[in-house]
């Protein structure tokens, strides 16, 4: 088990290396020039070349990569071209809103989707099942920004219960922090509710036809316990897999949601950095995201062993 964990952690090194090379090349092979963007529309070629020299972009690509990756290994992600700050401090500022948003989104998604899925499976074929599944199709197909603006209109503009947009740090008060996160989290969670509820239902339906469910009923067990004690844990592996995937995919959703609700998080930072061709920032953010992906996968695999004693590494 610990040997396995160690080998998996060791395995992240080549993954991160590949990601680093890939993103580095991708940025430099795209036809655009950060120096020209920084210099502005009225700059002449000489000025642009000067800026390029300052940024170190005039050196051979291999040299640039060696310098950059050497710094990254010491924990130095460089300085942003655009924001004029170190990338590390930039990410440090932006990470709290994104983590908060992701946390609430997954929390809402799991708390709503799993019971919905269980209910749908339990009442398989009934109107409850059909409503849940209908909602799930809707959740898949309506884009995040549409849901976002609809919710803003309803709860912020029309009913005036919640703020329209913005973000408040935890340090400035938990009440305000939660209040401003409700709408964006709900918006973002819709698609995950649809996904997880569907998976829960399918997985549970399969388990409900197993012999041990019949055994539990033969013992005189009540239906609620049959569902939650016997069925759900056996159905959990695919559900946890989907939740893990959901967390990984959140990053894409975060970009749109943060734009709709003007939350100063990593999603917004990514968009801004890409528009400004801010190489150091883009590279660092992508590296961070890939690292998170790998860790989530590992965490999911570790969860399997907790859920099912037959799974051992």
């Amino acid at each position, binding site marked *: 088990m610990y040997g396995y964990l160690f080998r998996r952690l060791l395995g992240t090194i080549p993954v991160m290396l590949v990601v680093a090379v890939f993103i580095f090349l991708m940025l430099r092979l795209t036809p655009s020039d950060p120096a020209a963007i920084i210099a502005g529309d009225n700059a002449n070629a000489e000025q642009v070349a000067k800026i390029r020299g300052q940024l170190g972009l005039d050196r051979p690509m291999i040299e640039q990569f060696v310098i950059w990756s050497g710094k990254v290994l010491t924990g130095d992600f460089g300085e942003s071209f655009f924001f004029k700050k170190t990338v590390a401090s930039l990410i440090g500022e932006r990470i709290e809103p994104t983590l908060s948003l992701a946390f609430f989104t997954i929390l809402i998604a799991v708390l709503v989707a799993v019971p919905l899925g269980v209910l749908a499976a339990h009442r398989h074929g009934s109107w409850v099942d059909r409503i849940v599944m209908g909602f799930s199709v809707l959740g898949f197909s309506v884009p995040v920004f549409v849901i976002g603006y609809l919710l803003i209109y309803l709860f912020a503009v029309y009913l005036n219960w919640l703020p329209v947009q913005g973000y408040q740090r935890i340090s400035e008060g938990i009440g305000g922090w939660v209040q401003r996160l409700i709408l964006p989290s709900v918006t973002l969670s819709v698609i995950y509710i649809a996904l997880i509820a569907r998976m829960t239902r399918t997985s549970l339906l399969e388990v409900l036809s197993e*012999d041990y469910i*019949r*055994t539990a009923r*033969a013992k*005189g*067990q009540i239906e609620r316990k049959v569902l939650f004690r*016997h069925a759900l*844990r056996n159905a959990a592996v695919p559900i946890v897999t989907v939740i893990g995937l959901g967390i990984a995919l959140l990053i894409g959703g975060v970009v749109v949601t943060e734009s709709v609700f003007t939350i100063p998080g990593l999603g917004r930072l990514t968009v801004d950095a890409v528009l400004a061709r801010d190489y150091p920032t883009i590279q660092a953010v992508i590296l961070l995201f890939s690292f998170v992906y790998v860790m989530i996968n590992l965490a999911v695999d570790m969860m399997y062993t907790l859920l099912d*004693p037959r799974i051992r590494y």
Partner: protein
Amino acid sequence: MSAPVLEVANLSVAIKGSGDRPHAVRGINLAVGANEIVCVVGESGSGKSVTAQAVMGLLPKAAMAVETGSIRLEGEELTTKSDADLRAIRGTRMAMVFQEPMTALNPVERVGDQIGEVLEIHTDLDPRERRQRVLEIMRAVHLPDPEQMIDAYPHQLSGGQRQRIMIAAALVLDPALLIADEPTTALDVTTQAQILKLVREMQGRKKTGVLFITHDFGVVSEIADRVVVMQLGRIVEQGPAEEVLRNPREDYTRMLLASVPSMTPPKRVPVTGQVVLQTEKLFKTYGKRSLFQPRARIVNAVNDVSLLVRRGETLGIVGESGSGKSTVARCIARLVPPSSGAIKIDGSDIAGMTEAAFRPVRQRVQFIFQDPYRSLNPRRTVGEAIIEGPMNFGLSRGEALQRARELMSVVHLSPEALDRYPHQFSGGQRQRICIARALAMRPEVLIGDEPVSALDVSVQAQVLKLLDEVRRRFNLAVLFITHDLRVAAQVCDRIAVMQRGVIVEQGTTSDVFAAPQHEYTRALFDAAPGRNREFFAGAAAGA
């Protein structure tokens, strides 16, 4: 007889929607007394399991419902009870044990907790008291080292131990009625013998009434006080076990009894044909120790197996699960690569051949699998399934279809069957199709891996007869893998007995059955249910 524990009167269970018949069971009358074991025997679709489920109140609600009749447990009517009342009775006054102990136990919960669950539901005992009670009942069902085993998960136990856990969970509150639905069908014979003994013992302990469902007359003769014979949802005949087994009144019962293969092998002329299949010092090893896993488990699934089969001969490999008998067969067909040793087909060694070199030989070794429900692709017609092989080996579609049509008459099916899908056939018909599919390749060696084990006895007899016909007609060398000594006695010229990867005994069927040499072979014979009984009673009078 004292007042019955269970009394079922005029019970009919309706099948909702369109089934092949409107009632799963109809007009059932039966009773189980205290301290009595009543066996319900029948083939698949006879309604024996539905009867058990109806008593337990566990009928699948969407598909079936009790229509008329009454079910009384210790005089109390169950059919009018609410769900909550029934739940309170299940586990306390009536309990059930199922066929497959692996799937009937929750794989992610400790076995002690699964026994304790019954106490949790129906008693006020605190966790410590529950644990004590669980340990007591685990000792009572003779589980080794209960203090350790109570915290084990089902996959860590053997099949027999799992079934003991199931029985412990069923009996922990001393129910008046125990329903056992084929509780030994999924187990090896030696394990089956132990579980049957345990059921007897536990039943005597508290004078429990037992409704024991089985398809196996051997088991019936071992355990039953009374027998109920069912066919197509109705009771055909019932009475004291001795009487029904010795002097069955109904034709159907006679037919069933006559279908049970005899333990006495018929006289056979030794086959002297040319050797087609031969293995020499065959090994198959699973698992490998490496730098990272120095303590990995190494299993010798097949250990130094040497055997030969002549043209026109049937060699049986007999053994329990895990004996390696299927692995031998799979190695010979090269479905798994052997670790070492030689496999000679017509003298040429195929064990080390490359896949390309082996390919032309592949059609000469054909396989029939155990479960005809899963070995045919449900989305392809029978015809497509049969012609696929010959077409892979160069026959045109027309020629292959012509061959398939001829084979349909060999396996006694009509040529129209080729255009239909597997689900439109019964289990026995599907196995005939699988035989035709194997024969379409014009093989020299036919391997049957438990080819009749999933079939009802009456169907089993027909398929065995067919296998014998095709062996004669095409002069095939047949390797017949089975766990069933009765079947082996009837179809094999010679048999090899396997235990833990090793052939412990090999000889002509009549020699091995008359005088088994190895102690394991003797143990197998001793465990065979109803070993001393011939079920020919009604054969002469009946069909």
